[in-house]
């Protein structure tokens, strides 16, 4: 890195510490009146050149000058932090129903689960990119259909949906044991509808 001369160095520090873009005169007021506007201007040119290719540089705004981070590094300054979150029970059940029955409407999912789905559950599944809207069912009201995505298969290590174990497999694995419904989390209990289980839920 170059060792700038005293004026360049002073201008550099003034622009750095300034809380707003500065005019040449404002800079001169700091670095000393011995420096002419022309000197300051020349110092700025040196600085502009010095900072080419670095993480920040000097930019001109009208007749004012300021330091600014490089525009192409905006993504670095605005970081996305990833927070691992586990799906709620309602979320995983809804996802399972979609995976086994797709394409299904929201009403069908609710009928199979026996409880209404709170608004956020499908949003979360779509945000996770495991579920996507898949057209509409051509019945009155034309309800939206939901299906799983390719990312779903990848995440769960499945080649196809057919890799999901069938009901008999689940029974053999002891996964069909009746579960105490009271364990159900409150959020998705919401208003309990009597539409429960009118429908065949065979996969």
């Amino acid at each position, binding site marked *: 890195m170059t060792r700038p001369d005293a004026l360049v160095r002073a201008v550099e520090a003034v622009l750095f510490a300034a809380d707003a873009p500065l005019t040449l005169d404002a800079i001169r007021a700091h670095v000393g009146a011995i420096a002419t506007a022309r000197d300051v201007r020349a110092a700025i040119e040196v600085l502009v050149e010095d900072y080419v290719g670095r993480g920040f540089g000097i930019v001109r705004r009208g007749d004012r000058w300021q330091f600014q981070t490089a525009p192409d590094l905006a993504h670095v300054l605005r970081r996305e932090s990833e*927070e691992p979150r586990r799906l709620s029970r309602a979320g995983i059940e809804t996802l399972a129903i979609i995976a086994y029955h797709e394409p299904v409407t929201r009403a069908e999912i609710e009928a*199979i689960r026996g409880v209404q789905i709170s608004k956020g559950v499908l949003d979360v599944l779509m945000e996770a990119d495991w579920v996507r809207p898949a057209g509409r069912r051509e019945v009155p009201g034309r309800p939206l259909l939901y299906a799983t995505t390719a990312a779903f298969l990848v995440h769960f290590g499945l080649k196809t949906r057919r890799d999901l174990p069938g009901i008999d497999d689940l029974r053999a694995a002891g996964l069909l044991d009746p579960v105490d419904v009271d364990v159900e989390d409150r959020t998705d209990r919401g208003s309990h509808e009597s539409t429960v*289980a009118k429908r065949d839920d065979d996969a």
Partner: protein
Amino acid sequence: MLYAARMDDAQLTLDLDGWEGPLDLLLSLARAQRVDLRTISILSLVEQYLAYVDDAHTLKLELAADYLVMAAWLAYLKSALLLPRDPSVEPDPDDLARRLQHRLERLDAMREAGARLMACDRTGRDVFVRGAPEGLRTVRKAVWTAEIFDLIAAYGRVSGRTRPVMHVVVDRAVMTLEAALERVSMMVGERLDWSRVEAFLPASAVVPGAERFRRSALASSFVAALELARQGRVELRQAAPFAPLYLRATPA
């Protein structure tokens, strides 16, 4: 009485001619000797302090309790230092003098340290941080996780919850109203004469062991007959309560 001032919160810090407490006064007297605090004569310092307090005619006695307590203690220290050493006296006066000297040295050191601290390159006075930083932003993004086992177990749970209801429906052989309606209306058109309602039951309902299904079929067929009669498509005839029920297509 002497301690009254110490109890009064508002007068906790005694400002006596600008001294911040007796230790401060002692330190100032010591520094006036312009010698290293480590080599200072505690005895002469004590004498100076006592003389100073004696001379301070302007002292407001009720405010100077701390100074007088210190004076009393120093007077005791002085006499102990001057008298021949009595090994039974605890603590050793020389030790007390050393401690006092240590305290003065330490207060002096902290005062000096404070001054040097204030002379550091202080932010906003000597050095400056960036005046208009863009700032860094963190956008939190949830990464959802779930295991295949969770997924399968969840489906098992849902199925386990709803499946028993399904089994009951499949297990109980029923004839639905819709089926009966269809069957009765089709068959009644093929028969010209009165037929008992039992004649419309499917064959599978009248075999031995199908009693539950027969009763379901009979009930549905009966309701179907009523519905068809309501629509004017069949006529019904029954001689008496619980007598056989006959129906035929309404003549054209």
